[in-house]
């Protein structure tokens, strides 16, 4: 959380650092710029001679995407799955992480380590056995099956991250709250949770990201068009006969929108959360 600079630097060194930062920013931002500009560029221009700045802007891809494809339905599916994943991840990982830090549980280290171990499996390795299980209980090809699959990625991350967060919080704070008149739950809600906001926000953003951008699980779990999520939908646009770049770029831009929004609104907490373990408080 500190922003202090590390002493005096020569003008040359500062210039070099700025230059490097600019290069990195350009390197990461250019594809995003290209995606957005391509989604607004007329077809001929894109195929023949794409200039850095489009000469003419058009919303035609957005119209066709929203009006003539399943994109709106897919967008809604993605949103439902991602929000459900975030909600369940938050509730469960807060409860598990808090329980593991505050109760005397045998083998609590093993629980957390086990969850992280599960996280290390590539999604595809989990997806296939999961699919078989869902098929057995009749959950295959449902959004719920996708939510459950995404939890296998988000829960370990959430528990592990919040575990570190709660562990760093002195227990005396809750005890002080209990002496001050709170119940145990009250102390948690009034003292621990408000202090954990940066961690909670970070976990929520990561969970949303993982679910929102997942392709592998969706590919395995979802068969019907009605239940496809956006990444699946976009992939199926790259058909055998035509490559509708404009539509794909417009679809990609729309996918990125909620992420931008979340980042802009929550970046303050997000950065705090990531550095929380770094500074002794």
């Amino acid at each position, binding site marked *: 959380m500190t922003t202090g600079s590390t002493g005096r630097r020569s003008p040359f060194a500062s210039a070099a650092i700025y230059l490097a930062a600019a290069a990195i920013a350009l390197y990461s931002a250019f594809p995003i710029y290209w995606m957005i500009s391509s989604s607004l560029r007329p077809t001929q221009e894109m195929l023949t001679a794409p200039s850095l700045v489009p000469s003419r802007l058009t919303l035609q891809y957005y119209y066709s995407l929203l009006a003539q494809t399943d994109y709106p339905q897919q967008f809604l599916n993605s949103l439902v799955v991602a929000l459900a994943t975030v909600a369940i991840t938050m509730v469960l990982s807060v409860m598990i992480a808090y329980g593991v830090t505050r109760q005397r549980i045998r083998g609590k280290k093993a629980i957390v380590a086990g969850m992280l171990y599960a996280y290390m499996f590539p999604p595809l390795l989990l997806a296939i056995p999961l699919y078989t299980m869902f098929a057995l209980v009749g959950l295959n090809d449902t959004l719920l099956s996708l939510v459950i699959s995404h939890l296998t990625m988000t829960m370990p991350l959430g528990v592990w991250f919040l575990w570190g967060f709660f562990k760093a919080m*002195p227990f*005396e*704070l809750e*005890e*002080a*709250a209990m*002496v001050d008149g709170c*119940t145990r739950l009250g102390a948690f809600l009034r003292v621990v949770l408000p*202090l954990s906001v940066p961690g909670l926000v970070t976990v929520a953003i990561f969970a949303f990201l993982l679910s929102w951008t997942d392709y592998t699980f969706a590919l395995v779990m979802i068969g019907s068009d009605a239940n496809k999520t956006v990444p699946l939908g976009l992939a199926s646009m790259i058909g055998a006969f035509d490559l509708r770049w404009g539509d794909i770029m417009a679809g990609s831009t729309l996918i990125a929108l909620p992420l931008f929004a979340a980042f802009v609104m929550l970046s303050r907490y997000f950065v705090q959360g990531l550095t929380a373990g770094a500074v002794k408080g």
Partner: protein
Amino acid sequence: MAEVSLRTIRKTYGSVTAVEEVSLDIARGELIVLLGPSGCGKSTTLRMVAGLETITSGTLLIGGRDVTSLEPKDRDIAMVFQNYALYPHKTIRANMTFGLKMRGVEPALAAERVEAAAEMLGITHLLDRKPRQLSGGQMQRVALGRALVRDPAVFLLDEPLSNLDAKLRVRMREEIALLQKRIGKAMIYVTHDQTEAMTLADRIVIMRDGRVQQIGAPLEVYDRPQNVFVAGFIGSPEMNLFQAEIAGGLVRLDGGATLPAPDGARDGRVVAGVRPEALELVDRGVPLSVRAVEQLGSQTLLVGGVGEMGMRVMLGRRDDIRAGATVHVSADPAAIHLFDPVTEERLPSASDAGDRSTRA
């Protein structure tokens, strides 16, 4: 009637006994200090009174009410933690108001009480800051203030000064003593620092390995330590303790030297104790070869030996004694403490008549 009563309170963690049958009655306005080395069960005892640890067996009464199994919030207590435990996300004002708000005190009245307490502690100018903007001493005051506004039946303080530097510690110690007298409530204060205990306490409870060793006023435990442990723990520099034998009205130290025995001492093996400040220079007494001289300003401490045994002597200021010298020391027989060498318990002597300190 006692404001707080601990009746045979025990705490065990599995097979480990942390606190062994503590019984104690605390009057209104009394300041009790729990004193003992680290790990002796002071904090556990305090936390059982607070309700932060369950009581394995025994009964706890606060204000005449059996609170043994009540939640902390229902016990009418306030606590000050060693690390202050201020809520980092709240302002100082909100920190101090929180307990009142939780108890449904009217906001206007709560604000008034917070202002009054802040005034008393000299922290009015800090009320709108956040805890991280405060120094250690200021946080200490806020933690006291947060307890103070609650106006509980008993204040519980767990090593509240141990995170402060030495100078501030002395000042806060004095302030706490004044504050406690002014508000006239019962207080239990935990420390491992015997100076804090001696200066603050109405009565000291000395603990070791979960057991109460002695309960008494500071000068009672100083004058009549119940056993060898208390004798060594209370007083600075430490009491000189020697293996010795009583014979013919003399205490014969195992090194060969002799001190006069107190009246009524029976012949036999003993542990003899004499405080450094009770020893004085004499013409003919125990020969002490001085190994080091520590000048403390108004006093001079001689660190030396009698044969194999170490001995310390505290004198009024002396500029003329050098290391390497040999001096003769002795003590008033009434100032010599005798203990059973096996049980380490105090052996009764004539000067103990009218002993009011209790042995738990």
